[in-house]
């Protein structure tokens, strides 16, 4: 799907050639008119799905990760058909936030979601998504304060800072009116009406497999097998793998898998260095990437990489994913007291960027990236 999108973007209008066959005219080439409704005219054209845009560098179809700062570092966004792996920070504070941003972006853009977790129920995760900062809600807030501005006497009198009484109350914050990449307010929950319109499928591991009555260590891949079957089923149900060609409206499926490789999935990668089935995590990622490549989906997986005992598995996991981002938070580490880092909450390491239909990848030269989480903004800054 990723390659087809590239083809569609770069080729221009091969559809017009096909259209010319039916009509008799002086030349066999016809100028393709402006796409008003786009109803007729066959041939590949750029898929115009909500919440996506083509990359300016290589024409890949991109979706936003939910964090405009991270999108910029990844070269515009996450390419459709790829897997983004996030290495969790030590106390698991910021990686659930990135996970939630990804899902919230899917809801705001109207994509279908698939949420898989062994720790929390997907419905619970969706209830806790941050609220988007959209244009209309910002203006509504401003209007309410504008009414107060007209009657300064009746408004709340400030005792000490009275000179500021007449100034309008403005919330200075980032507001994005674009259709790609939104900002979120982490102190508010996503409005219920937005959640109700969202289409999502959840996979909660304790509900899908019964607790093991006989304790057998070889059942490690059991949870993973179930998850892969579920993903395959949803991919074909939603038609994102092109299995329903008559379906005109295409949509992206966003897959979010939380804490893959943790013992809650039944995987021993975090518990022992040489476990019996040490290949289950790597096999899972291999099959997952195949499923995702062949469909219009984008996947975000968080892995507690600091817990994985065998470093060979970490290296394999990195090479089996497309984009790998590592989070390192300063909480509880000795870097917390380092004066260089006092404004920031942690470091971000971009460990790998994929080469999709390219010979080189878009690696930025800046290697020290630090992030800071404010209520409405997650900034990533460079060059400490």
């Amino acid at each position, binding site marked *: 799907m990723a390659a087809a999108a590239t083809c569609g973007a770069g080729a221009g209008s091969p559809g017009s050639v096909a259209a010319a066959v039916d009509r008799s005219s002086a030349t066999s080439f016809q100028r393709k008119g402006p796409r008003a409704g786009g109803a007729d005219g066959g041939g590949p054209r750029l898929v115009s799905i909500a919440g996506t845009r083509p990359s300016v560098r290589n024409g890949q179809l991109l979706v936003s990760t939910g964090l405009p700062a991270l999108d910029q570092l990844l070269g515009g966004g996450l390419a459709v058909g790829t897997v983004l792996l996030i290495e969790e920070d030590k106390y698991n504070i910021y990686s659930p936030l990135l996970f939630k941003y990804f899902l919230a972006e899917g809801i705001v853009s109207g994509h279908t979601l698939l949420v898989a977790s062994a720790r929390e129920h997907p419905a619970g995760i969706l209830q806790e998504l941050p609220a988007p900062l959209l244009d209309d809600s910002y203006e509504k807030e401003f209007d309410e304060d504008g009414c107060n501005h007209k009657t300064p006497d009746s408004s709340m009198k400030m005792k000490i800072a009275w000179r500021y009484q*007449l100034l309008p109350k403005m919330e200075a914050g980032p507001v994005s009116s674009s259709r790609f990449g939104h900002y979120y307010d982490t102190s508010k929950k996503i409005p219920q009406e937005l959640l109700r319109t969202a289409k999502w499928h959840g996979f909660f591991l304790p509900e899908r497999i019964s*607790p093991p009555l006989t304790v057998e260590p070889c059942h490690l891949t059991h949870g993973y097998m179930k998850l892969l079957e579920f993903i395959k089923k949803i991919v074909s149900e939603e038609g994102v793998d092109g299995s329903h060609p008559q379906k005109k409206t295409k949509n992206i499926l966003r897959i979010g898998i939380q804490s893959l490789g943790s013992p809650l999935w039944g995987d021993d990668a975090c518990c022992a260095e040489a476990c019996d089935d040490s290949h289950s995590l790597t096999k899972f990622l291999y099959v997952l990437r195949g499923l995702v490549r062949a469909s219009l989906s984008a996947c975000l997986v968080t892995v507690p990489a600091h817990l994985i005992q065998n470093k060979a598995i970490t290296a394999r996991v990195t090479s089996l994913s497309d984009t790998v981002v590592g989070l390192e938070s300063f*909480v509880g580490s000795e870097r917390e007291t380092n004066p260089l880092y006092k404004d920031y909450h942690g470091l971000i390491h971009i460990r790998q960027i994929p080469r999709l239909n390219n010979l080189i990848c878009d690696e930025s030269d800046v290697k020290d990236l630090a992030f800071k989480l404010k209520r409405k903004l997650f900034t990533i800054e460079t060059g400490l």
Partner: protein
Amino acid sequence: MPRPVHWSRRGRDAIRARLSGRGQQSEMLESLLAFGGLVLLRDSIEWEGRDFLKALIKQSALCGEQIHVLGCEISEEEFREGFDSNINSRVVYHDLFRDPLNWSKNEAFPRGPLEALRAMCRPTDLRPVTIALDSLSWLLLHFPCSTVCQTLHALCRQGDSSPVERVNVLGLLHEELHAAGPLGALSSLAQIEVTLDGTMGRTSAHILYRKPRHRPAHQVDPTAHLTFNLRLSKKERETRDSLTLPFQFSSEKQQALLCSEPSQASSHIFYEPDAYDDLDPEDPDDDLDI
């Protein structure tokens, strides 16, 4: 003199508090039990944790909870030593010590201790339940780590589905028996991690709070138990509000200044200071109007 320790509710995600001595013991224990979820007690051979575990059990018995103990390492009589009768009545002891491999074929654990643990937490009454595991090390030695983690997670989750009650799971873990893998895996599951340590005969506990997903069931009030008063009574609040501050303008002057803001002065003075001029545009005596 031990300082009072303040626990923040939101904002700080993981803080470490070091306490030594018995000064704020009961409030510390109470705050450990406030959140629910897994409390991991890591001890070692020099600093034994069983007494701490028993203190936590006593504290939850005082709060009226029912306690189930899975005893694997010491006998029931030895465990119940030091508990008075009303605490003993609340403690239900499941004995794995006398017959760990079930040779006598009794029906105490028909499908294994892990299944018995899950059954413990399907409650018939609505009282909050505390489950004490003595010890997690025994379970880790007999069952695979991932299975133990999944069982513990299922236990902690029982408390989430019904918000009326709260399930506390207290697990005693002997650090020296395990490699970094299982220790890290259990730490990532725990809501609170207490590591027992000490110097020169005094035990100290390092408490690590992971970010709680919900607010604690009963809020720990940091302004209680202090030697000075941080609260304001209603009368005190009123007197504070009616206090006139120094350099506070009368309301007429305030309105005059506020209303004149939009209209600019009609004349401007252009002045270029030379190198030796020390211009301070603020004359501090200019706008005093008391």
